[in-house]
């Protein structure tokens, strides 16, 4: 059992390191995607960006888009299988 315990300990260490490493890599991946999308915006997005800048001040208030997104998310997830 000591054998198994040390193996379990090792698994604990290796497992957590890998999980963190993997998801940290993914953080990098997401940031790269964001940078890529910002660098090569499609036309619509450029339009959106301009629009967003003008709306930036107003965004401290509750954004109706976000409210809609929340209620959609809640709705969708209520119907999730798990």
């Amino acid at each position, binding site marked *: *059992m000591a054998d198994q*315990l040390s193996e379990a300990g090792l698994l604990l260490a290796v497992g957590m390191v890998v999980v963190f490493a993997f998801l*940290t890599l*993914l953080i990098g991946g997401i940031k790269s995607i964001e940078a890529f999308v910002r660098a090569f915006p499609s036309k619509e997005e450029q339009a959106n960006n301009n629009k967003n800048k003008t709306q930036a001040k107003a965004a401290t208030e509750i954004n109706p888009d976000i409210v809609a997104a929340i209620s959609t998310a*809640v709705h969708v*997830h209520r119907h999730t299988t798990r």
Partner: protein
Amino acid sequence: MDKLMTLWQSTALPHFEIGQVIMMLVGCVLLYLAIVKKFEPLLLIPIGFGALLTNIPLAGFSEEGGLLYYVYHVGIDTGVFPLLIFMGVGAMTDFSALIANPRMLLLGAAAQFGIFATLFGAIMLNAIPGFEFSLKDASAIAIIGGADGPTAIFLASKLAPELLGAIAVAAYSYMALVPIIQPPIMKALTSEEERKLPMAQLRIVSKKEKILFPMAVLMLTLIFLPSATPLVGMFCFGNLLKECGVVDRLSNTAQNELINTVTIFLGLAVGSKLSADKFLTVETLGILALGAVAFGIGTAAGVLMAKVMNKFSKDNINPLVGAAGVSAVPMAARVVNKVGLEANPHNFLLMHAMGPNVAGVLGSAVAAGILLALVG
């Protein structure tokens, strides 16, 4: 007279064993929890019903030639059903909250501590006479801490098929019990002030980012952790169907009829593993205990990680959202929201908790891949 004897022998009465009666009561309890308490009814109703059917003497539902026998061998033994569920869940999941705030992935990582710590615990249980969990068994049990039903079923079908029934029941039960298990842990580890912390609004995520995200996840997985690709790959496939916007008919089928059909049969097949000889063992008690421990540790690890991140971050991170890292989508995020509202009635944490919540799904799929690679 002869016919009457045959008929009597063909009733269940002379064949019932006490274990079967107990297992049928277990099935009824699952149905009760599902219907009256609304605990994960989509899975627990088929599982509970499957438990009833499989424990009937002579009906032969789970024996060769019986319906549940076929369903189990076609869907669970092969791992096909959990993968199809994952595809459907992928087609239902919106990663916006995570893409807007990718550091939340660290919370999804921290919560997997519950899995690996439980591995340790399962081996220690072997000190008690009656328990003899192999490392494979321990891994399949520990994944309960991932709070993700299909992942647990997939891993158990590969590593410890004889424990599958108990593991699946424990996984779904604890997922249903999130609103009861998590809040005390969350409150014990956070101060009133911390729970009141508001978080900065999330930015809007573009369609392109949402399309590239599943591709990035897939690429990282297949390069660094190919053993996790069955789960992660089907999840990303479902998500790509949803986000690409050009195959809505496939996406709709994946997240509706297909996942519903598979859910019905997955549940029945899991239920068919709740036979007395497999379930009424001391090991089941161990599994239930370890599952609860895994869940609790995962929650605590998520909350503590969020506290650490809050220290080092310039933007506020409410430590409560760490609890959502165990996954149990979307229940855990809703619990975070509820506990947050108790502290500050104007502080809606739901969207902020969705990030770690979906991160937890990826995290436990990754953890399953690691266990498959190292133990399987």
